[in-house]
């Protein structure tokens, strides 16, 4: 049915998931940092955070990806040359892909995290400080655990959109599932079959993710009274 391309598609799926996971890691780091910046007292930090989210919302993923892939390499080379580094540092499609997607979703996650942190009653933090906990302790033991629960719905949404946007990495030549589906389609002249297979695989990934994250939500909401 898949003319022998099934193995290739599955291999591509592995790469797609790797791109998604790596991008998520970068996005979480950027998101937390940006949320902190936008909640901070410094006007500069808030302005930078706002500018970041504006750019990401205002420019298509595809354009950013092409910019990072084609332009980023030149920038890195120029930078390396200035620092006196001979040779080259390669921005291959994988790196360009995760850098771009991580950059984009860092902005969206920042909004999710920021909303979640703002939803924690201020009294919680105050109480922690009143008990003599240091600011870092309050962050790690009071704020973050509660933030996780509040951020999960938004996070689920962001993750699902992230997984789907990894399809664009095929445009810059990464040999992921979409690219392999396209090659199989071109070689066998059966685009419908292979793009349908790709759709099915994505649907499977999103379904599994939804189920897993819903289970996580339930676990984190133990003991919390929901307004039903």
């Amino acid at each position, binding site marked *: 049915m898949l*003319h*022998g*391309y099934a*193995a*290739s598609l599955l*291999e591509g799926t592995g790469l797609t998931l790797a791109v998604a996971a790596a991008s998520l890691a970068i996005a979480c780091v950027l998101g937390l940092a940006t949320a902190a910046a936008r909640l901070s007292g410094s006007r500069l930090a808030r302005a930078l955070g706002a500018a970041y989210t504006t750019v990401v919302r205002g420019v298509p993923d595809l354009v950013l990806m092409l910019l990072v*892939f*084609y332009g980023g*390499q*030149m920038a*890195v*080379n120029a*930078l*390396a040359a*200035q*620092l006196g*580094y*001979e*040779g*080259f*540092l*390669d*921005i*291959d499609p*994988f*790196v360009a892909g995760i*850098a771009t997607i991580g950059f984009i979703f860092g902005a969206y996650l920042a909004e999710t995290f920021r909303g979640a942190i703002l939803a924690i009653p201020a009294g919680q933090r105050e109480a922690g400080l009143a008990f003599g906990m240091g600011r870092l302790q309050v962050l790690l033991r009071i704020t973050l655990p509660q933030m996780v629960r509040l951020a999960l719905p938004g996070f689920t949404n962001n993750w699902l959109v992230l997984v789907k946007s990894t399809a664009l990495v095929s*445009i*810059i*030549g990464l*040999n992921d599932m979409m690219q*392999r589906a*396209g*090659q*199989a*389609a*071109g*070689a066998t*002249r059966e*685009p419908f079959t292979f793009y349908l297979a790709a759709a099915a695989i994505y649907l499977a990934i999103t379904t599994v993710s939804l189920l897993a994250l819903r289970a996580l939500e339930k676990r984190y909401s133990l003991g919390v009274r929901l307004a039903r």
Partner: protein
Amino acid sequence: MNRPIALALCLLALALPAAAADWKRIRIGVEGAYPPFSELAPDGTLHGFDIDIARALCTELKAECQLVQSPFDGMIPGLQAKKFDAIVASMSITEERRKAVDFTVRYYNSPSRFVAKKGANLVVTPAGLKGKKIGVQRATIHDRYVTDLYKGSPVVRYTKQDEVFLDLAAGRIDATLVDSVAASFGFLKVPAGKDFEFTGPAFEEPKYFGWGSGIAVRKVDADLRAKLDGAIAAIRANGTYKRIQDKYFDFDIYGKAPAP
């Protein structure tokens, strides 16, 4: 420049060891979507005339080959951005491209022709094709030629040649200008292309169609170009070229040198 930030940026990119001066390791940009020159098998490995030639040249130069896949319209920007050191992707040697990169001597030469539906009786002139949709692969010599000379025809550009063939078979475009060998193997000889044929003459005008297909390198890498020139001559002389050629074609694809 702030050192920590710069360092972080460098760490962000996957660093490969520098290969420069001695060319013991050559990264070669290939397409993987242009049968019979370059295509991907179901298991994900690269096959084709271009691929075999590239590997043979590396063997001749006693260097390690690393094949890097790239879409065709990103090849010259990719070369200049140092994603790879040479392009072996059936890239024709043209004056326009020579402004950006340097080429080795050619490693094959084949003409370009129009492909259209059998019985369409298209007159292959700018006037005859007026209003007919012509599909081409973006950034190729065919793209340039049709854009410049067939101004009365809507030009539809695709990222890959097999996307052009898909739409030609579906009737979305009326004709395509393409390398005759790629058309023959990639389309006319497969079931999807059975209702199609070559129309019009073979195009070889060097101004647009260049002087055969060569290997592109950055202008600063004159030493690599010289090495590759030598390697091409060597594999022509020692029979490796003929062996590879016979694997794919029953005719001489090296061809004659086009008029300068």
